[in-house]
């Protein structure tokens, strides 16, 4: 029966291509949306992941960087440095603002870095300085090249003109880029001396991150302390929570489209082979034999569609990356398992549709006309 299903499926290559292609596109809808959100999750934590800090100290109750603001008094720096197990502390300023590059405006995390910062600086410099001098800004290289800006050119950040002193890579995402200026410039523009946004903490070798985190929180008032992993996880959680409903809706629509395409294909394939199925019944095949054949045919098509859908998504991800798009697609095992399960359900349901046709098939049909 499996051989029959295989032959039936591959007998008409155009129909098979259309059906596998249709299912592939429907599954691609689900896969690509998952991949978009996975990509954003990965991009959004790039600064935190590459900061070099083990612990982040923020204003009490602030557990995120994206869409958040944190203000802590500068005296906190000394208090944190005094906690046993703390090796180094780098204070940074942070807010979200526009970088104006000629006619272009781009949303960016603006990071104010102290001279000689050990942490929180750009992690992949392709040209120029890796810590901004006074009056200089380090901006993303891809963003700069898109508008023809190079080292020494002018950009505007928070209403002030800066020389491009460095170009970094990996600092641009679908949502925003990251730009670095000196903490001196930041404080002057923000007109908020005496405060800082975040403290990046390096734990001394051999010390436990968790113990130092707990000690800072216990000894320094008015702050929230998280390990880098916790801080990044909270950041990813924002994207996850914002995307949950959208992903659920898209998954449902993608599933229904895939189901409609597959049901249509299996139904059409059975209909055009009605006489042959009647012949099999006349030769003694039971309804169960025929159901197995139909299910296997649907399963084969869906497996093909799944493979194609995955291939399309991978090609799309590679294409976007080569085109330099900020839209990054990341396919993970969780979405592959989810789409695999949906594919199985699609195959089972679409195979159930022609059951009535098969069970009602008259074996004598084959002897008529």
């Amino acid at each position: 029966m499996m051989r029959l299903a295989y032959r039936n499926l591959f007998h008409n290559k155009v129909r098979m291509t259309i059906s596998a292609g249709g299912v592939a596109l429907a599954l691609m809808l689900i896969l690509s949306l998952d991949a978009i959100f996975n990509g954003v999750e990965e991009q959004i934590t790039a600064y935190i992941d590459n900061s070099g800090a083990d612990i982040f100290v923020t204003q009490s109750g602030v557990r995120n960087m994206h869409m958040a603001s944190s203000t802590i008094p500068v005296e906190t720096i000394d208090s944190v440095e005094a906690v046993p197990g703390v090796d180094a502390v780098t204070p940074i300023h942070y807010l979200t603002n526009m970088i104006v590059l000629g006619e272009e405006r781009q949303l960016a995390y603006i990071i104010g870095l102290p001279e000689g910062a050990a942490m929180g600086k750009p992690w992949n410099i392709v040209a120029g300085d890796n810590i901004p001098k006074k009056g200089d800004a380090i901006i993303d290289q891809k963003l700069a090249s898109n508008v023809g800006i190079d080292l020494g050119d002018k950009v505007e950040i928070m209403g002030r003109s800066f020389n491009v002193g460095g170009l970094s890579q990996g600092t641009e995402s679908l949502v925003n880029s990251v730009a670095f200026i000196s903490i001196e410039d930041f404080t002057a523009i923000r007109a908020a001396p005496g405060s800082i946004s975040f403290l990046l903490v390096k734990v001394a070798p051999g010390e436990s991150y968790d113990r130092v985190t707990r000690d800072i929180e216990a000894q320094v008032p008015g702050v929230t302390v998280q390990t880098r992993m916790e801080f990044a996880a909270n950041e990813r959680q924002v994207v996850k929570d914002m995307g949950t409903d959208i992903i659920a809706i898209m998954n449902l629509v993608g599933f229904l489209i895939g189901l409609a395409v597959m049901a249509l294909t299996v139904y059409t394939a059975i209909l055009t082979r009605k006489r042959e199925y009647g012949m099999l019944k006349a030769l003694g095949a039971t309804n169960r034999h025929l159901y197995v054949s139909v299910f296997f045919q649907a399963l084969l098509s869906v497996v093909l569609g799944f493979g194609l859908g995955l291939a399309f998504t991978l090609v799309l991800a590679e294409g976007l990356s080569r085109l330099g798009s900020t839209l990054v697609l990341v396919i993970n095992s969780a979405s592959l398992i989810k789409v695999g399960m949906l594919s199985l359900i699609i195959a089972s349901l679409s195979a159930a549709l022609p059951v009535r046709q098969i069970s009602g098939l008259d074996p004598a049909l084959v002897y008529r006309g």
Partner: protein
Amino acid sequence: MLVARRNLAKDKMRLGLSIVGVGLAIMLILLLNGFLTGMNRQITAYLDRSPGEILVSQKGVSNLLGATSILAPGVSTEVEETEGVDLVIPILSQFIILDLHDKKQPVYLVGYIPELGGGPWQLAAGREPQGVGEVVFDRVLANRHKIQIGDRLNITGADYTVVGLSEGTTSWMTSFIFLHKKAAEELMRSPQVTSFLLVKTHEGAEAINVLQKLTELDGLEAFFKSTVSENDLRIFAEVFSTPLRLIVAIAFFVGSLVVGLVIYTATIERQREYGVLKAIGARNGVLYQIVVIQALVAAVTGALFGLLLVYSASWGIMSLRPQYLIVLDPMIAMWALVSGLGMALAAAIYPVRVIAGLAPAEVFSK
């Protein structure tokens, strides 16, 4: 026409499935567009409903959402003294992330002075904040998290009492919450700082002239609120347009494939009959018409079904998840038909080629 209709209607199950497939693809396209339109309306809600015609920000800031603006104390007086300015409303605003029932909920916090305005434009219940420990919550967000008037909430380390619920201040990404400006200054640890000034001009004063004068002030930017709305929309459009276009393109291809499969099968099944028609003198043009009409009927019926689906789906989504606003454009029917026509034409290409290659003699050879 009759041949096309009969050919298509011969198998109702097949036709039904194709209509469902096309309908779902069209629904997806229209739903995404409706979602985007609704999101745009939600993004500009504060600027649309807040008082004043002009927004003053820190130099270099041309957005309300997404960008942080900090105006030093004293700027408000400078703006008030500008010729043609009637009223200046300071607000201190910032995105913050709330942790509600283990969910991360971004909200846009607006600190305002109730006597001047700039707060919620419609209260569903309760009153505006009068003291520093009070907050007005968006009604939809409050309902989702079972927050009621009188409840105490911790916002970035400090406790606030919910004294009011605002209407029309929600969106799927972020909802608005309102505090007294003094409370916002404490929460952001930014005493006497203002983010933006909403400026009302004197009756009779030319708003454009007032705007011009305000832009001349040192360290400030001034824009009509409509310009700031456009800038905010541009930021979000940049983020969402690429993924959205990608999904719409996939949906369009799926729809074309569904119609294509039906028309192809119907054409192949009737290959001999098409051969007979050719043999008795029907020209290719006539046969193409039959195929295209079948594709059109399947696609346009599917498009109409898609319209029905999109209205039902958007009603369902907005009832279950009121934070989503799906605005279906009055031109939606036209877009559905255009998408359906596009799918029909794309779907007819291959079957038309099959017919073109058909030998009239084939019918007699079997």
